[in-house]
């Protein structure tokens, strides 16, 4: 994994290397040029030395001829030695261009030395004329040497002219090159830095964006960072965190749903319990009183009234006991008859009750007070408001494993909108119910009891009547699978 630190190191060291190479090259090149210039300058200095030495020798020779003492002799010998040394140096200056001239030059120096020596010799032998002649000649040769020095210098200048110009041009060009290289390196550095900083900030940016998404509660998007440094590691960790949070949230949601369902069933139970508690204000007193009234009526010869009171008492007892535990369908049907007995006493001829019950279905378990509230609804809506009364028919039949219970009335019917509202639980109608248990309560209790939805359906035509259909499985466990199959 390339770390950010390593990236920085790489960038800086590559740049340093490039700079170093450029610097070394330029320095090396400059040094070479300088060496060349130095060697050329040295040539000129050497040539000049020859002229100076030859002139000095002539002066010394003159001094010696005028005054031939030992001191002057030493001096002239010294200057002769000097000029011979200089001559040795001049030999090194020979090259292809000036070989001829420099050879001549060297021989001229030879001639000068020879002539000077002859002059000294003549002088020592007291031959004044000879020595003067030789001195004059030496003087002339010295002049020739001076002239020739100039000629050679001129020639050198001509030979090296192009070279000098090139050196000047090149140093100019070198200056320009320096500027261009500086600009080039700057541009390259800028680009490299730009890319480099992008390689750091881009993943950070991506990470920031991902963090923002998380902050806004979107846990589904995968965090992707195209990088290979620490940021990528960070992103990976971040992604793992995201997945974990996502899982946790899902879990919490599931739990919350469960909790919600639990709460609902608890509420229903509470409601029923409350209702039963309310009606239990003095149930035994009421119950005993009703029984006493029944006996009293029987003794008074009002048998009908006595039966009615027995029915009411039975209904009351059933209502008190059976709300939170299952009963058999048989018991339900029994209560249904008792209730209808009471209602028939109330509505007399206005109420027609028909029952068509398959006896083989009556052993089935069912939550208590399932049919009674529905029948009561039918009485309230189909019989009470109608002056001519109406018909209520109850049918219990078997369809495979399903027990179908149909309660039909001949009332005004319910609109389709209201049916949906009823079934979805948004319209409550338990007002005025004798048991205080409404339609909603029945639907929900069935749902909780069997663990299956849509057990209750309503068919209705306005003006003709309403039919409530309850279908329950014959056995609770057995039919649970079948439910899913038959929809």
């Amino acid at each position, binding site marked *: 994994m390339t770390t950010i630190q390593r990236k920085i190191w790489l960038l800086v060291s590559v740049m340093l290397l490039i700079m170093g190479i450029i610097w070394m090259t330029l320095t090396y090149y400059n040094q070479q040029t300088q060496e060349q210039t130095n060697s050329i300058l040295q040539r000129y200095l050497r040539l000049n030395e020859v002229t100076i030495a030859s002139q000095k020798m002539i002066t010394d020779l003159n001094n010696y001829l005028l005054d031939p003492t030992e001191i002057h002799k030493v001096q002239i010998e010294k200057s002769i030695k000097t000029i011979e040394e200089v001559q040795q140096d001049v030999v090194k200056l020979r090259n292809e261009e000036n*070989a001829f*001239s420099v050879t001549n030059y060297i021989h001229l120096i030879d001639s000068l030395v020879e002539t000077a020596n002859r002059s000294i010799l003549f002088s020592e032998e007291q031959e004044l004329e000879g020595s003067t002649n030789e001195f004059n000649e030496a003087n002339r040769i010295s002049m020739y040497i001076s002239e020739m020095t100039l000629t050679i210098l001129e020639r050198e200048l001509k030979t090296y002219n192009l070279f000098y110009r090139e050196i000047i041009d090149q140093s100019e*060009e070198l200056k320009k090159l320096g500027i261009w290289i500086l600009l080039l390196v700057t541009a390259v550095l800028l680009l490299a830095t730009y890319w480099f900083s992008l390689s750091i900030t881009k993943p950070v940016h991506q990470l920031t964006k991902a963090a923002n998404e998380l902050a806004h509660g979107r846990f589904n998007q995968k965090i992707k960072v195209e990088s290979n440094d620490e940021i990528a590691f960070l992103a990976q960790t971040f992604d793992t965190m995201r997945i974990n949070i996502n899982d946790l949230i899902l879990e919490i949601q599931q739990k919350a749903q469960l909790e919600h369902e639990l709460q609902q069933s608890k509420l229903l139970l509470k409601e029923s319990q409350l209702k039963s508690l309310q009606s239990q204000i003095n149930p035994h007193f009421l119950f005993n009183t009703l029984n006493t009234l029944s006996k009293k009526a029987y003794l008074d010869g009002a048998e009908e009234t006595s039966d009615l009171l027995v029915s009411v008492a039975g209904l009351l007892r059933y209502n008190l006991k059976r709300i939170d535990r299952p009963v058999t369908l048989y018991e339900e049907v029994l209560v249904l008859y008792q209730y209808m007995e009471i209602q028939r006493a109330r509505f007399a001829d206005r109420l027609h009750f028909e029952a068509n019950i398959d006896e083989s279905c009556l052993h089935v378990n069912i939550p208590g007070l399932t049919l009674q509230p529905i029948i009561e609804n039918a009485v309230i809506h189909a019989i009470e408001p109608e002056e001519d009364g109406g018909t209520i028919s109850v049918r219990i039949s078997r369809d495979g494993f399903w027990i179908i219970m149909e309660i039909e009335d001949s009332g005004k019917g319910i609109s389709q909108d209201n049916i949906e509202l009823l079934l979805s639980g948004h319209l409550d109608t338990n007002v005025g119910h004798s048991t205080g248990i409404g339609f909603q309560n029945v639907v929900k209790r069935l749902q909780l009891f069997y663990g299956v939805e849509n057990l209750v359906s309503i068919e209705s035509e306005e003006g003709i009547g309403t039919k409530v259909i309850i279908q329950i499985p014959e056995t609770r466990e057995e039919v649970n699978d079948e439910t899913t199959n038959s929809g």
Partner: protein
Amino acid sequence: MRKTIVLLLGALIIIFSYLTIVSATKAFRSSSELPASLSEMEDSIRLVLITQELDTPFWNKVGQGAKQQAKLENVELEVWGSYGNNEDDFLKKMEIAIHSKVDGIIVQGLDTDEFKELTKIKAAFYGIPVITVANDVPVEESLRKTYVGSDQFGAGKMVAYELIKEMGTSGEVIVLRDEVQAYYQKERLAGIQDVLENYPEIDIIIRGTEDTNEQVISTTQQLMNDAPRATAFIAINANYAGPMIQEIGRRTQVEPYHIYTFDDGVESTTLLEQGKLDGILEQKPEQMGQESVKWLMEWISGETVPLNSGGYLTETKMLVSDGDKP
């Protein structure tokens, strides 16, 4: 934004790279080679060709020929000399050459005592062989090894024959020469006289002059006054032909005159082409240069010792003006 920056920087990098490469190729282009240095004293033979008339067509050709031959013989040769007959400078060059201990000197002979002393005493003292070229100085006066050049006596005769051919066997001929005659001029004059003496009806008027243009012009003037019937001119020193013709042209037409000279003058060839000269004697300067180097090398290497002191003569030829041809 990001793309713009990258594109901009990319473009800049390309531009700067180009400029850097251009600049670098210029800056690091291998500088022109310096002459290779020769640290050891090589014993290559050094020859000098010395003339009084540098940069004249004639001597340029001599120099060319000598250089060609020197290259062939693989020896070093330089052409030294003075411009426009500067005698002091010329003698100085001779002295420098001798003191420089060159291996051989090829020189345009000068008929003066100083020159003779230089060749006879100094050069001999240093043991340097001297060959005269084009212009000779007699061997007994200069101790030159040999002479390479035209037979000046024969050249004079050729000019004279040409003159007779054109002019006929009678008339006045004006011959212009130097006041102080060099050996080669004497030879030429002798050649001319040798021929013309056979024709009694030809009068020869010989006059010397100083070597300045003014002097030449005034001498010409005098001559034309003295001999108004002269129909032919011969300039023995070819350099005098120019001013002479200029003076003639100032007075009268140049055409009717028969004017002859030699090719070793500065203007000789030009004047011939213009038709002002009727003829010049053409020598072989290149051959002179070549042969002088050749013979000198033969002497130095010891192949031919001694050299023919009479000299090695090169061809001469009469060159006549196109305008004069019928």
